[in-house]
């Protein structure tokens, strides 16, 4: 009886110790990073390191900073750089924001497959998305009202595109704010007059085609030559330690970089 009790106690402890040792990494932020890339990196990391569980919620880059600030995330994924008033928030609350550039992403412009327009000038892109050009016939397409699909305001892609393509002008009031990359692809694929922007990793959706910008083809080979390429980041609260540090180092390792390339981004070391 005595031995039975002690053995069962030992077994219970052994059974629960993995649960005690397993760490939980919460990742919050960008839909561009968090829909495909980070889940795949997380899977590969779990296979290698074990004892860690991931909780990924991708609702837009702005949520990365709000979550890091309140302490509900260990890593923030952002497809844009931190804004001055956000970093001011971190300073006033005494938290130290660390930035890690993880991959370069290319924002491509997509139109419906049946749209004859296949090349746009940078000025035309700005005019279309800010609502100055309202009809496809103004850029050489068939007459029809342009339907613009953008991300919503919590998205880093939304903000980056404003800076890269629109010289910080506001989007036109006729733009429709979709929740994620896949939804934009679905709507542009279904609407012959649709236009939208996406990360390159999502650009091969059914029914859409990529538009070249003044002849420049978006590709992962020469990413910095294409006008709408931008770096994406991981942020942490303070210097990362323990499992967080291991995960970030994993993202920079050759295995991590191979995954980054496979998904359709360009790893930091190879961006030129």
């Amino acid at each position, binding site marked *: 009886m005595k031995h039975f009790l002690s053995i069962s106690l030992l077994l219970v402890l052994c059974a629960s110790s993995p649960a005690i040792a397993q760490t939980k990494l919460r990742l919050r932020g960008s839909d561009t990073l968090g829909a495909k890339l980070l889940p795949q990196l997380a899977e590969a990391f779990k296979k290698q390191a074990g004892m860690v569980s991931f909780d990924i919620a991708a*609702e*837009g880059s*702005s*949520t990365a*900073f*709000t979550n890091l*600030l309140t302490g509900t995330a260990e890593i923030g994924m952002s497809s844009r750089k931190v804004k*001055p*008033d*956000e970093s*001011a*928030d971190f300073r*006033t609350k005494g938290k130290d924001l660390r930035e890690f550039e993880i991959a370069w992403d290319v924002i491509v412009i997509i139109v419906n497959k049946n749209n*004859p327009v*296949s090349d746009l000038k940078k000025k035309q892109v700005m*005019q279309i998305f800010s*609502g*100055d*050009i*309202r*009809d496809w*016939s*103004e850029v*050489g397409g068939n*007459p029809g*009202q342009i*339907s613009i699909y953008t991300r*919503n*305001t*919590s998205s880093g892609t*939304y*903000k980056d595109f*404003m*800076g890269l393509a629109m010289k*910080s002008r*506001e989007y036109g*009031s*006729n*733009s*429709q*704010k*979709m*929740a994620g990359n896949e939804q934009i692809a*679905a*709507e542009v694929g*279904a*609407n012959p*007059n649709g236009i939208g922007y996406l990360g390159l990793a999502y650009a091969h959706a059914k029914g859409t*085609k990529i538009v070249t910008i003044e002849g420049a083809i978006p590709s992962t080979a020469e990413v910095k030559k294409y006008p709408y390429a931008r770096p994406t980041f991981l942020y942490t609260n303070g210097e990362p330690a323990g499992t967080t540090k291991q995960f970030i180092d994993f993202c920079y390792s050759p295995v991590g970089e191979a995954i980054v390339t496979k998904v359709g981004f360009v790893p930091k070391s190879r961006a030129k």
Partner: protein
Amino acid sequence: MKDPAANSRPSLGSLLLKSQRRSFLGIEKQRAIRLFFASNSSVAIIVLVLIMLFLLREGMDFLPTYRHELETYRRAGLEFCDIIDRPLADHQQLCSKLRRAASASLNTVTNTARRRRDAAYEMMREVEEETRLQSSILADALVQIPPALPEHLNSVRQELRKATLIALERLQVSAVLTVAESQQLKSELALLSPEVLALPPLVTALSAEYIRVDDEAHTAFKPLVDAVESFEAVPDVLHTLLDEMKKHARETKARVTEIYGTEKQPPRQESVDFIRSIEALTSRVPELMGKVEEYALLAKKTAAALPREAGTPQATELLSEMRGLLPVHLAEMRQAAAGLPAWRHDKPVSYFDVIVAFFFGEAWITNSSWQDFFGFVPLLIGSVLIAVIAVLIATPFSVIAAIYTNQFASEREQEFIKPIIEFIQAVPSVVLGFIGISLLGDAIKGVSEWSWLQWIPGFPIQERLNMFNAACLLALMAVPTMYSLAEDALNNVPRSYLDASDALGATKLQTVFRVIVPAAKSGIAAAVLLGMGRVIGETMVVLLVAGNRIAIPDFSAGPGVIFQPAHTLTGIIAQELGEVSRGSAHWQALFMVGIVLFLISLLVNWCARAFVRQFEFNKS
């Protein structure tokens, strides 16, 4: 012998059988039970009051915060820049008309060449799409390290060749290319591979032909094209000066944010030397006014250079439209410029201005690099329109179903219909949202393209996520509520009415439609209102399906406006609450929207109760 005191003690049996008034802590059992039930119901009231207080507390802070934002907007000079910048945006509308006119004219010459070139590109793209897998394998094999063996490369090339030939078999030939040309193109496309960097010769030839024809068109329409280009360049005289001023205003605003961070109620802004930075702007007012005048004269001159006639009647109409709108635009610009000297940077922003800016503002712009505006009107219109359409769709169905099941249906039919309608309530709203995106949107769009339905205003529809789509799903959700309440109202009509009508010799139909339904009408009205209250608060469906366009719908399309996308009060809260930091102006603006939603729901429910009370009053 028992003493008398012992006789007065009751036995156990009689104790249990006799009801006694036992009290615990001074509260008797009956009162205790009553108190228990009363406290449970008052918990509900207390929670409701707490919710209202919480909403009010978070939302009322919005007024001072937004007032501070608008004051900064004025003091840093951004409002000053917008006085000219806003009317200038109309110039783009005029340019848009000119561009459309120009391209309509050019198209008359270049149409065929363009379609041929596009057809060739389309065929090339189709083949590339079909062989994407094999060509990406070949591309990877060519760059892999260590280099691939020649046999492997050759076999991959063979695969690609085979796939290309299969794709070419399936290729649809366009009618704009001659038979010989299509054959030539097909044979050229068979050689498509990642190793060949040059485009097929026919494609290049067709592109060159298009460029040649395009040049011809430009020469033929030279006056029109030149006039359009020079009109587009007219605002440049203003833009250089305006961009400088905007940069200066932005820098001032950035200094304010840096010094005061994101505090809700910073102290008076005396550290930032507003007076000096504003003088940098106001000192240039005469220069700006001069530039506006220059712009107006230049615009008139270039517009006069536009030809009367363009290639097509459509283009000519666009040109005359533009000529009609130009004087209006120039008058607006001149008026704005005349108001410049009177602008003061330290004019105080009153709370009344803030309330007007929120409740009557027409732009909801957040996360902007210029200035955030929280205008409530587009969201309110979206919510109200969707709710009204949903109620209009749901009311006939639910009321007629209620009349049928209550008055005409047999027992078996009643037992069959009622549970099914009430089962609709069990479907989760997010599932309905999915159905809306995938099935209903495509269905409505497909129906709108039927040629015999084109008389309906708004057909064929442009967007598949629109207000009508959301309203249909919301109507489906409201039907069970309306149906049950309408049926209850019909049930509550006193039997004496039915008997009296029968006694007078009325038929069943006459009884139902002339006696029972009018008697139940306020109950039915209450049912409709409660259905509306249910619909106005629905979030998930409208967020997924209504199209999320934050703009007042274009009512000039008449009844077709219901096929346009819109955003709603509930949708904006759900969409933006994840990204706002607690206590910021945006956060508080969302809570204000929440307060208004709450009040609307309360109002609708109060009206419904008033109807029911009136019904009961009439009855007695």
